[in-house]
């Protein structure tokens, strides 16, 4: 075998909270291959790539590029050595054009001034070379997520990237866009670029990649050529046990409506409709899923339903009563619980203890406090029970939430929201970015909770698997409006869902109107 173009040798990384993100990891890539870096969330993929791109320094270990040892002090060093990175969260200037973004950092200059025509020409040439179908003069804020990703790739290529790292690029794409991306990545490969493809979607790996390295809990579990392994074998290596990929659940039982949304609209400060005349209802004993590409009004909807945001038009009823003008406390008292999509901002106080986080919505209840003071013994007892029931791994109720792993932080949040006695739960991206074990646990808890028949849930998720597996019925949101309703979430195919998510297809108002009546 030739000398690898990239060799990361015996890399160890220990973070300041004592967490060992990488332990003796070796990653080696050949020129002109697509190498998959696989692992569950929290397995150490992103950390490893951060070190490759100079964002973090390895605690131990060496990095070689084309056989020469390199030490990166920052991203600029990495770019200079031909490493390009496409982050999960795009780093683009929204108000500039595509061409201006692509040349950022290596702007063409004519007579001492920025050469706009030159930038457009340069971008166009590069885009044509790899069959990227884009308009260099378009403003970035107005293009789709898929196009933004292309801009990031072009930017890296223009900076001379030979090794291109893509961090979960398909997470934000529809199935159609994913296919297009794969075509382009194969073209890049043929042109001699090396691609490191980070993902945990095994079918994509099987389709696209040549070789792979699997990380688990910061260690290399296996490495090999993709054709030699079945997805099942890789899956077993990733999680160390056979994951229950399909959730078994009983059918929903039809009960009374717990929440109904009628012709709800919300306009942002510029007067644009972020939520555009939507209607649906949620029944006790069932889960309504909301699918959609992120940023199509889902977060606003969840904030409105939990009292953090006012709405402009329409009506929302909870157990038959309007929620207009209710404070967060009043809403919670009338039976709403919610898992926020932004865990560290709204879901918890990282510098507060587990007990303090678990009590935030109920400390004032007679069970936990007297007239003025808190009942500390009673609180501790309940908190210990929650820690046990929700399998939160920690040193005790006084450990800071910020010191826990992502999955355990989410379990703390779920423990609070699921035990609040709510009749309506809004779960916004409840398992994003957490490990498979915790994901499974939380999904199962949510299903169990609704199957008691006392609770209805709204599940907002960008993870197609999640909305399809966990929900009973399903609506799709696109540009703030509901564009499809499926009574049985199980009967929908991924491709069909993708077309609605992209706005290629829309159902008739009559079909969508069924969402108002609710499931079954």
């Amino acid at each position, binding site marked *: 075998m030739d000398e690898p173009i990239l060799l990361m040798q015996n890399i160890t990384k220990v*973070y300041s909270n004592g967490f060992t993100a990488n332990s003796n990891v070796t990653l080696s890539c050949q020129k002109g291959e697509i190498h998959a870096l696989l692992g569950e969330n929290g397995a150490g993929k992103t950390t490893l790539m951060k070190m490759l791109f100079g964002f973090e320094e390895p605690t131990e270990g060496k990095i070689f590029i084309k056989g020469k040892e390199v030490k990166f002090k920052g991203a600029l060093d990495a770019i200079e050595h031909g490493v390009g990175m496409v982050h999960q969260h795009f780093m683009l200037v929204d108000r500039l054009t595509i061409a201006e973004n692509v040349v950022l950092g290596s702007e063409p200059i004519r007579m001492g001034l920025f050469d706009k025509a030159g930038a457009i020409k340069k971008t166009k040439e590069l885009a044509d070379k790899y069959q990227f179908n884009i308009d260099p003069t378009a403003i970035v804020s107005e293009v789709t997520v898929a196009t933004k990703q292309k801009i990031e790739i072009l930017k890296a290529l223009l900076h001379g990237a030979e090794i291109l790292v893509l961090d979960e690029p398909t997470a934000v794409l529809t199935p159609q866009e994913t296919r297009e991306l794969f075509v382009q990545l194969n073209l890049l490969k043929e042109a001699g670029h090396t691609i490191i493809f980070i993902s945990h979607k095994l079918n994509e790996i099987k389709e696209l990649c040549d070789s792979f390295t699997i990380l688990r809990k910061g260690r290399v579990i296996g490495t090999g050529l993709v054709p030699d392994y079945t997805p099942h074998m890789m899956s077993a290596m990733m999680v160390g046990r056979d994951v229950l990929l399909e959730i078994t659940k009983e059918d929903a039982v039809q009960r009374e409506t717990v929440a109904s949304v009628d012709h709800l609209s919300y306009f942002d400060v510029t007067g644009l409709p972020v939520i555009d005349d939507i209607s649906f209802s949620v029944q006790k004993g069932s889960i309504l899923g909301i699918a959609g590409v992120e940023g199509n009004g889902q977060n606003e909807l969840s904030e409105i339903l939990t009292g953090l945001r006012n709405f402009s038009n329409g009506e929302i009823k909870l157990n038959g009563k309007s929620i207009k003008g209710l404070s*967060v406390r009043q809403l919670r008292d009338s039976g709403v619980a919610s898992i926020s999509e932004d865990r560290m901002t709204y879901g918890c106080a990282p510098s*507060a203890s587990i007990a303090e986080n678990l009590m935030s919505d109920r400390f004032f209840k007679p069970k936990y406090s007297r007239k003025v003071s808190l009942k500390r013994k009673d609180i501790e007892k309940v908190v210990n029970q929650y820690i046990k029931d929700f399998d939160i791994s920690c040193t005790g109720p006084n450990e800071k939430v910020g010191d826990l792993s992502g999955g355990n932080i989410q379990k703390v949040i779920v423990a609070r929201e699921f035990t609040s006695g709510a009749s309506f739960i809004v779960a916004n991206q409840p398992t994003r970015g957490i490990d498979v074990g915790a994901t499974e646990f939380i999904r199962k808890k949510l299903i169990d909770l609704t199957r008691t028949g006392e609770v209805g849930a709204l599940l907002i998720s960008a993870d197609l698997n999640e909305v399809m597996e966990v929900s009973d019925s399903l609506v799709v949101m696109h540009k703030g409006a509901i564009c499809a309703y499926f009574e049985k979430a199980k009967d929908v195919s991924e491709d069909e869902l993708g077309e609605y998510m992209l706005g290629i297809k829309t159902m008739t108002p009559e079909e969508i109107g069924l969402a108002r009546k609710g499931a079954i």
Partner: protein
Amino acid sequence: MDGNLRLNHFFVKYFEAIRTLVAVLIGFGVSLLFIYFISDEPVKAISTYMFKPFDGIRRIGSMVEYMIPIMFCGLGMCMMMSVGQFNLIGDGANFLAASAVAYISTCLIPNCPPILFPVILIIAGAVIGGGCGVIPAYLQSKFKTNIVVVSLMANYILILGGVYMLLYWMRDPSKTYVGSYAIPEAAKLTNIIPKTKVSTGIILAFLATIAVFWFLYRTKPGYQMRLIGKNAAFAKYSGINVVKYAIIAQVIGGALAGMGGAIDTLGKYDRFIWLASNGYGFDGMMIAVIAKGNPAYIPAAALFLAYIRIGADIVGQTTDVPLDFVLVVQSIIVMLVAAVSFMSGFRQKSVVKIANAEKAGV
């Protein structure tokens, strides 16, 4: 090896306390170096600085007297910090309350029965201080003003207001120096250590420390305030009335500073004589920062600050070193305590060692 590992665990566990201690020692060490280089008799100056504050009941008394108002201001600052607001109104609140209490006792109600008199005056100080505390808090929640800027600027108004009261409302014209009429004996706090001016105020200061700690860590309002300070967005999402409790905390913070002003005036002076801020509010800010906002550490931080202040005073009076050098010490300590990354490299090394040991053990 085992003992070494235990040391690492200890270091990580008590990192914040160790870090503060090291910052204090470095600050103290630098001040010694300072004296060494500027003094012609460094040995005498240093021993004066280090040991004279404990030399005799009078000097120990001065330290304790000094602790009283700064403990109250420090506790007030802990309240501000509990809701995550760096409201620096304490200095103005302390001064205005001190001045107002002097005015009330000399001019408004000079004939009040003892015992009840100081109680009324301390309550008055608290009310005035609380009123001061609400100004920056309200402006911030209503108009989104910057709380640090507003509170710093408002301090000038409050302090000059206090000076105005002295000059135009209660100045005793029979005195050659600027001073108020004499504060009635019935208004004064009882002296508890002879030969010093240590009053019952020190007892009140410790009681206040216990009360503030209990309030913040054991009660419903205190819990809500700390949750707001740790993550206001989360507090709001949990259903806590963030604006209300943030303002209440700052009113209490101002009230504590005001009480400090009242108690200092009634415990230590015959007349109100201040024509400029005495700086207690900022001393309180400093000890609250050293105590990391935890009221339980306020007495120790106050004692330390009183020690270096009184030490510097004595050095300034008896040696050739100007007393201003103490400002250098304070600055270094506050800077090091507030510097988030200070010593984090050492901590990282310990963390790595522990992590490696755990890995080897598994």
